[in-house]
């Protein structure tokens, strides 16, 4: 019994001490991590809106060109000519997919899609994040939705070719992008 008490006491004390150390490290690194996240979003918004920037003047370029608009608790990054970009978030096949999409003024035509984070199968679904694939979404239209087609070639202006060997990821991404863009465009007051 005494042994058991000693054991529990030891684990509790050690656990408390180490938690304290982690708390200190966390409070020191948390602001930097938050800042890194913010910079990642800004970098991807600029890329999606097709604005050139350097490593040093990223924030300056962002402030000069992008107007941050908040509507119905959603954040929009609007360019002077009316092109709108926003973040999208949702489930892929294996894990969350997070990225930024920019639409032209008509809120229908895709300008560019950026993927910030995905956990799809490397070499198959993971190719979703490659520029050569994402490029096939450029200038496609949500009329009324984007369709990722698998068994034939994409023909209409709302059709995009799927990734061979990654039908499930393609389907998940189609659902994700249509749902998110629909929601954001409706809240923005257009579409």
């Amino acid at each position: 019994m005494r042994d058991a008490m000693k054991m529990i006491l030891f684990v509790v004390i050690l656990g408390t001490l180490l938690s304290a150390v982690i708390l200190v490290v966390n409070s020191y690194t948390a602001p930097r991590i938050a800042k890194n996240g913010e910079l990642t979003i800004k970098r991807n918004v600029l890329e999606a809106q097709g604005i050139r920037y350097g490593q040093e003047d990223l924030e300056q370029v962002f402030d000069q060109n992008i107007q941050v608009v908040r509507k119905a608790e959603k954040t929009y990054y609007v360019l002077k000519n009316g092109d709108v970009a926003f973040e999208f978030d949702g489930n892929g096949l294996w894990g969350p997919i997070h990225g930024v999409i920019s639409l032209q003024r008509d809120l229908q035509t895709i300008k560019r899609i950026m993927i910030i984070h995905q956990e799809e199968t490397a070499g198959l679904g993971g190719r979703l994040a490659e520029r050569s694939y994402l490029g096939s979404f450029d200038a496609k239209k949500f009329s009324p939705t984007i369709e990722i087609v698998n068994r034939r070639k994409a023909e209409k202006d709302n059709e995009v070719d799927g990734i061979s060997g990654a039908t499930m990821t393609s389907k998940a991404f189609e659902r994700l992008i249509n749902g998110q863009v629909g929601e954001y465009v409706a809240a923005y007051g257009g579409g």
Partner: protein
Amino acid sequence: MALQLKKLTYTKTFRILRSNLWKDHPVACGVLGMCLTLGVSNKVANAIAIGIGFTFVLVVTAATISALRNLIPKRARVIIYMIIISSFVIIVDRVLKAFFPALSEALGPYIGLIITSCILMGRLEEFSMKNNVWYSMLDALSSGLAFGYTLFLLSVIREFLGFGTILDVKVTPTGWTNWVVIGMAPGAFFVLSIYLWITRTLAKVDPMKTGQLHG
């Protein structure tokens, strides 16, 4: 007496280094830490980051365990290893996220996987629980470096063949075709097994004879 003691120290230090870095190498002989070895040896930058992070975690946990070895209740020791290892791994993860965000994103889940590495548990159980802080740190440092240099060698071969780059700098001539498979998961098995074959032959290790065949 002092001289003899010094000589003895020298011998033990030397034995630890030789055993960990070459003769009883954790990867080449023990076939430990496979998850990380196969997973992060695709790029040199990843290998260096994991090598340093891993060595850091191993050295500090070994020092902590060794300093507390007479206090640690024997029956709860594995839980205590886990608590200490995971705390330091969380610290490494936070520091990478704060100061090297790109690297942290590239390594993904592998930083967390340091916790489950058999090399850590093996060294703590086998060595740190029985030896003083100095030797435990030496043992941990040499095991970490042994793991690190193996990762580094494997990643140089894999990044060169698989991506045509070293540390993301293009080194292959134009017209070179990447051996994509080497950069992907199956390539890790090919390169690792050839590496094991070569190092075991050079170190004259035969696990079938010495009974070291364990996963």
